[in-house]
């Protein structure tokens, strides 16, 4: 196996980790204002992700660093090309983090309402833009001969890309709803479960539309027949089974199922792109591929050694952290002031 392929897979894993983990805390942030009945409910929601959200975000930071090291041209083209969308994501993540960390620091209504807005919009905006951005990548972008993006902001906002954004937002929200069902108790948990059940149909329709139109608009299914293969089938299967698992009261498994939907969906995107990283619509030869965008073999070798040492370690202590905080967050665990 060549190192370019290994790093393509590793970066895919980092994005899967990011969408899986931050996906549910985006969902929690989006749902928090709607399923809470009072301030304590809101704090319960926030505290379900309290110990995790920051580490979840590090998956994105690491993906950024790994892209820089392994595929510098990908890093350079993607983030200079998606300049303003990325700016919006960054600002949203800033406000969101500040909302989480500082909300309980001042016991004033205005302060808490502001923090609620930061958390809601700071979760909704990135959840949407990541979908739009990924959709644009799999649609292909106007990339010139010098590897630079030549399009404009509004070219990124095609109806299909917006459909992608809506799909990602809905799926993350659903994922978050199941997570809340898993991590809270009492009436709050019941409301979360209800929201989750209600969301399955719209999420399913959006995903279906996105997948079917994908034949027309994206490079994902090029060269495939009508039946695209195992991975999309697994995504569909996971999505549908999640609904029934939740109805059966198997919340943990249902959460695994929405997670698996995100996992397989991301895998489909990366696999469909392979060996391209960013297809060019101007000239197929100008596309960024894992070979023409990569670092030297020496860099990739060193990075591989580092990743193979640290990724298991990271998974180990992150799982430990989820294990420590495995109990449901209850209303009486929230300080009174």
């Amino acid at each position, binding site marked *: 196996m060549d190192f370019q392929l290994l790093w393509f897979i590793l970066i895919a894993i980092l994005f899967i980790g990011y969408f899986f983990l931050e996906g549910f805390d985006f969902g929690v942030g989006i749902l928090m204002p709607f399923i809470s009945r009072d301030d304590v409910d809101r704090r319960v929601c926030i505290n379900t992700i309290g*110990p995790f959200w920051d580490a979840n975000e590090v998956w994105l930071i690491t993906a950024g660093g*790994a892209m820089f090291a392994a595929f510098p041209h990908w890093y350079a083209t993607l983030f200079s090309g998606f300049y303003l969308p990325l700016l919006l994501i960054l600002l949203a993540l800033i406000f969101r*983090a500040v909302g989480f960390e500082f909300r309980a620091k001042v016991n004033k209504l205005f302060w808490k309402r502001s923090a609620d807005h930061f958390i809601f919009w700071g979760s909704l905006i990135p959840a949407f833009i990541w979908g739009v951005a990924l959709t644009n990548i799999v649609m292909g972008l106007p990339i010139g001969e010098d590897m630079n993006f030549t399009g404009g902001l509004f070219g990124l906002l095609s109806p299909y890309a917006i459909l992608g954004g809506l799909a990602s937002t809905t799926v993350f929200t659903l994922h978050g709803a199941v997570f809340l069902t898993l991590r809270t108790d009492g009436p709050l948990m019941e409301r979360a479960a209800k929201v989750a059940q209600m969301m399955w149909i719209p999420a399913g329709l959006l995903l279906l539309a996105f997948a079917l139109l994908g034949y027309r608009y994206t490079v994902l299914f090029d060269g495939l027949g009508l039946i695209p293969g195992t991975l999309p089938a697994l995504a569909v299967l996971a999505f549908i089974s999640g609904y029934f698992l939740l109805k059966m009261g198997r919340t943990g498994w249902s959460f695994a199922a929405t997670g698996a939907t995100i996992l397989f969906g991301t895998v489909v995107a990366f696999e469909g792109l392979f060996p391209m990283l960013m297809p060019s619509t101007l000239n197929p030869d100008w596309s960024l591929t894992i070979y023409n965008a990569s670092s030297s073999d020496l860099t990739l070798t060193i*990075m591989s050694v580092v990743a193979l040492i640290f990724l298991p370690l990271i998974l180990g*202590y992150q799982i430990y952290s989820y294990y420590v905080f495995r109990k449901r967050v209850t209303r009486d665990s*929230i300080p009174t002031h």
Partner: protein
Amino acid sequence: MEALDLARWQFGITTIYHFVFVPLTLGLSVLVAIIQTFWYRTGDERYKQLTKYFGKLFVIVFTLGIVTGIVQEFQFGMNWSEYSRFVGDIFGIPLAIEALMAFFMESTFLGLWLFGWNRLSKGVHLLSIWLVAIASNLSAIWILMANSWMQVPVGYEIVGGRAELSDFVAILLNERLLVQMPHTIIAGFVTGGLFVLGISAWMMYRGNQVQTFKKSAQIALVFTAVASLLTATTGHSQAQDTVQSQPMKMAAMEGLWETEQPASFSLFALIDQENKTSMREVRLPYMLSVLAHNNATSEVKGLNELQAEMEEKYGEGNYIPPVKTVYWSFRVMVGLGTLFILIAFTGLILWWKGKLETTTWFHKALMGALFLPYVANSAGWLVTEMGRQPWVVYGLLLTSDGVSPSVAGSSIWISMAAFTLVYGFLAAVAVFLVVKYAKPGIPKESDKSGQDSDEVSDKADAFAY
């Protein structure tokens, strides 16, 4: 302004702002860990109170460091795509390792520390804060490795217009890293030390739990005294390295236009960059030669000669950095560094005389000194980064060749305005919160209501959101 200037301004604003919080995090994380260790070892409740008190302040500061750090990870690609293409092979490695080795550890164990007061054993809880402190400082090592390579590129070869890695060990052991990394990290310790000292002094001055805050002041005094001395010695090593590896930067730091042998150290000068001269100079003879080479009669090259040398080597161009900024930033940094040493040792003497908790003028001085390390840190950073101009990678890539060609000036205006506004807002929030949480001090033990609230928060999660 052109896109290039805007991109430079944006990078300067966001990086200096990020670097307000980072050094404080480096030092404060270690100090909170030390104080908690005292609690663990002695069982003295006062150390527990101090841990919670400074821990809350630490979290506020840490949050600002994180949110401004996310921007840093991506803005090389956003604004400096050509730079990213050129250096990715090398620069990306420490960045990725930083995330893998440090950021994950830092964020996961901070979560465990914040929410684990009642769920973890005391030992594991203590270990968590130590891992946060270690991870913060590890991240500094890796990012400084990346920066050191921009200052003194090693272990590379140019292949197809890009710098490709040829020797990873050379990058790990870059002589520049070995002087720049300790200097920067230890300056962070001084920043954290003066923060704890300043706040402890404020509380002693106000008569809040004087005996408790005397303890944190004592810990921070020892910490700051050692760190401020080491900052000076490592800074000296770094300057000596700069003489060898970046003579142009050194000449700018000294406002030295003409080569001198023996070279004098400048105390004051009005710098006229246009006419390439300095006026009203006050100079200490022989001093620069001594500082630069440990030899009173050695030669130190001036800006004009170095400019001629560089033109010969790299072709026509202006290779002189903005001398005035570099010259004065250097003086501000060194002056403040010296002041920090004086303050720390004054404090040690007062402690020795048993007057640490009663000397109010010193409390006031410490409260003032709390704000100064940020000025010194930014000044030091300006010397390093502005002194390297016009290069982004010294001798290899000009800053003007690193900027993103596909990003329009209008986009950068938008982002720069947004960052400036948001960061301004964040600064206001952070200062407000630090004051809000620092000012009440620690509730008195005799105070019944204070005790009650502490008991309540012991059952619930004290650091819950």
